[in-house]
């Protein structure tokens, strides 16, 4: 009657032992964490005596997976950024204009003179002096189109050319915009990742969210503003020819030119040509350094094509100024003294050492293709996190002890069985969390406490059922057996429904709420497992040994 096959018994105990082993590292959190860090450091940077010593703090053959602590427990910064994908359209159009001009110039005889018109940033408008040549103009510009490089946009081309009277309009097609948006977000994601890696913080989370958003979580960083400084600047470096200099921000720039403020000198504005000679994309290296006066500066080096263009330009324009522009501000506008052939240069300005180091990092990692707007930011100080952990620990222990006492008082020996299962249950939750690399958040701790309360439910259902069967006059073995089989459907229904809500929470929630859903969901699985397998096995083993004539539940 009360039989459990040997293989099942072995399997049940194996699961419990595995859970305990997986959960164990969390009891020595700091030590295991240091050891894990040291192991990674040895792999990356080689062995040193200190690292070996740190690594030896935790035996190699033991599981070393830890539960990740969420930002609300560890402290750190959380940012949700939206990539301003439209920025790219303007840059694309600006870069496309010279091509359009060249193509139309060749057809001068038919289309006449051409004149770029003011237009929204995401299109090019060209007026032609012979409207009757529009058909030819359209044909020529359409010939410049390229196929869209994406799966969904197969067969489409990247630009859309139309005419309004004597004005020819070029803009990006819908398919190209979609493809471009996707590329922009991917690229931004990659660059954000590179920038954060350069600073070398541990375990950052950098994920794409939805179509155009990036979620960034960095534990241990001082504040979200600090994080924003690293990733928030586009670091778009360009070298533009200078047309003029003045103090009027609204100066007439002329078509193809733009007015930019100076970074250091308030009230000074430069008019520069919009199309840059070289850009940050042509850089291969940037390092913080000092200029000849000992002030912090950044030295950089171009790749071969960048170096050639930069060399050609400086050779042709000796004596005229060019502007070093960073994110639409003129860092400096030196006069070209000589032909710069080597492809390397130096950016000077009123930098602090920290700023020059940051700028070098940004230039090295590459420019963000578009600006980021921050929709949500959270900073949690490490002290608050520690307070929360401490409070959570105490509350969990008190809750635990109270439930243990209550169960023992209510069900005697069977209550003790349930208590052992309950302790195993919490260990299993931690083991499972470590195994899947789940994150523990403050609501997650609440989830565990709630599971402690609810995990006894399955046992209670069984025990109450056994009581009823005993009352109905069944023998002990029969009562236990019936109790389990009859309570099973209630246990399953009750837990499946709660599990459904945990899944929905996980799917819809984010951050801390998701942490709660994870512990709740895992807690339901482990509590069902411990109630219908572990306690039962304990009761059966006890029963086999004692063979009591009567039992009291």
């Amino acid at each position, binding site marked *: 009657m009360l039989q459990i096959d040997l293989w099942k018994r072995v399997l049940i105990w194996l699961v419990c032992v595995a859970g305990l082993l997986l959960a164990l590292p969390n009891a020595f959190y700091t030590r295991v964490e240091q050891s894990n860090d040291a192991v990674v450091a040895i792999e990356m940077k080689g062995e040193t005596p200190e690292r070996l010593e740190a690594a030896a703090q935790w035996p190699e053959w033991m599981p070393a997976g830890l539960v990740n602590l969420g930002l609300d427990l560890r402290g750190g910064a959380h940012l949700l950024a939206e990539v301003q994908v439209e920025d790219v359209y303007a840059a694309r159009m600006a870069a496309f204009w010279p091509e359009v001009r060249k193509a139309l110039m060749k057809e001068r005889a038919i289309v006449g003179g051409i004149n770029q018109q003011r237009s929204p940033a995401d299109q090019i408008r060209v007026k032609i002096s012979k409207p009757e040549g529009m058909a030819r103009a359209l044909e020529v510009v359409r010939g410049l189109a390229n196929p869209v490089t994406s799966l969904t946009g197969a067969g489409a081309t990247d630009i859309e050319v139309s005419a309004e009277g004597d004005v020819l309009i070029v803009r990006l097609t819908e398919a190209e915009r979609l493809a471009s948006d996707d590329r922009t977000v991917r690229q931004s994601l990659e660059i954000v990742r590179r920038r954060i890696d350069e600073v070398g913080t541990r375990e950052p989370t950098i994920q794409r969210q939805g179509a155009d958003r990036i979620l960034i979580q960095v534990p241990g960083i001082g504040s979200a503003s600090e994080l924003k400084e690293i990733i928030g600047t586009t670091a778009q470096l360009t070298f533009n020819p200078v047309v003029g200099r003045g103090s009027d921000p609204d100066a007439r720039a002329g078509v193809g030119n733009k007015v930019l403020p100076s970074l250091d000198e308030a009230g000074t504005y430069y008019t520069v040509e919009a199309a840059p000679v070289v850009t940050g994309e042509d850089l291969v290296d940037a390092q913080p350094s000092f200029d000849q006066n000992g002030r912090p500066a950044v030295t950089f080096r171009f790749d071969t094509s960048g170096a050639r263009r930069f060399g050609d330009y400086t050779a042709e324009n000796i004596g005229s100024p060019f502007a070093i522009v960073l994110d639409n501000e003129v860092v400096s506008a030196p006069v070209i003294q000589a032909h710069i052939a080597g492809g390397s240069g130096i950016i000077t300005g009123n930098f602090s050492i920290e700023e020059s180091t940051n700028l070098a990092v940004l230039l090295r990692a590459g420019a963000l293709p578009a600006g980021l707007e921050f929709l949500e930011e959270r900073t949690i100080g490490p002290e608050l996190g520690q307070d929360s952990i401490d409070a959570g620990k105490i509350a969990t222990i008190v809750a635990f002890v109270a439930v243990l006492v209550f169960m023992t008082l209510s069900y005697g020996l069977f209550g003790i069985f349930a208590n052992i299962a309950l302790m195993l249950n919490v260990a299993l939750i931690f083991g499972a969390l470590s195994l899947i690399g789940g994150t523990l958040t403050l609501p997650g701790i*609440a989830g565990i406490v*709630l599971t402690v309360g609810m995990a006894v439910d399955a046992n209670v259902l069984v025990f109450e059922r056994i009581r*009823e069967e005993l009352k109905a006059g069944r023998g002990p073995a029969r009562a236990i057996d019936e109790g389990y089989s009859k309570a099973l459907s209630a246990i399953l229904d009750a837990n499946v429904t709660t599990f459904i809500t945990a899944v*929905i929470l996980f799917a819809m929630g984010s951050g801390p709420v998701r942490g709660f859903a994870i512990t709740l969901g895992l807690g339901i699985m482990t509590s069902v497992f411990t109630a219908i397998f572990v306690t039962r096995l304990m009761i059966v083993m006890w029963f086999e040994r004692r063979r009591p004539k009567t039992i009291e539940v």
Partner: protein
Amino acid sequence: MRLRLVPETTSFDFFKRWKIWLGISALMMVVGFASFLLQGLNFGIDFRGGTTIRTESTQAIDVGAYRDAMSPLGLGDVSITEVFDPTFEEDQHVAMIRIQAQEDGESISGEMIEELNAALATVAPEIKFVSVESVGPKVSGELVQTAVIAVVLAIGAVLVYIWLRFEWQFALGAVAALVHDVVLTIGIFSELQIKFDLAIIAALLTIVGYSLNDTVVVFDRVRENLRRYKKKSLAEVLNLSINETLSRTMMTSVTTLIALISLYVLGGDVIRGFVFAMIWGVIVGTYSSVFVASTILLWLGVKRDWSKPTTPTGNQFANIDA
């Protein structure tokens, strides 16, 4: 000796005063809903955008001085509340500052926070910002939407599951109890003006899960007893089933409450609102699975035997009242 929350055998008649119970529930739902409509919820920044800053300092907090120090910055609507908690140390003074969403841009700028810090340092030199959270209006709008979808989805999924496992009358009874619990929880949050943020949505969904847990256990027993006692009336079967499961219902509720109360008292102020919602949910959830779900089931009636037509529900109520 064993601790018994409920006597070994009980035979309470839960439906003797069913009108009163349903009446109380309906009244409380109306009060809760009216409070929600009139007063509205005290939404946290998750749902209406803005910034909250948690400050800590060793000096006692003078809310007026804080306010004066901040007023030159022109931040619009600012609320400052001091936080008290038994887990704080002697000289640990915590305040929560909430600032409305700013006109320009989505989240608050780093310079703004530095300015604020400098301004507050004039009244409380050792002030520290232990956490700063800022949510732009764009995201908060979406969060509201997601939260509503999540709750509706959860209730819908449950409805379908119970319908599949039981009969449709059971599903309706269970969902009525869930709606009751959700409305009462939102009602008490609006009545007491406790901050309503994303975590509370998680609590709401847990309440949905918990209340259901209770309801399902009772219904499971009802289903079993309906098969066993073919002659008994539905009211008798329901009463019997609730009485039989009463001991378990109380045990589970009490253990869960023990755990939650220790978290409420000792878990710190950050999650107190969340835990409060759950405690409240466990209480109303236990109540509703007995007095709402089962009563509705009685009201709707259950088809006992597929070969016979359903007993008219009016008769059953007449029987109880007689």
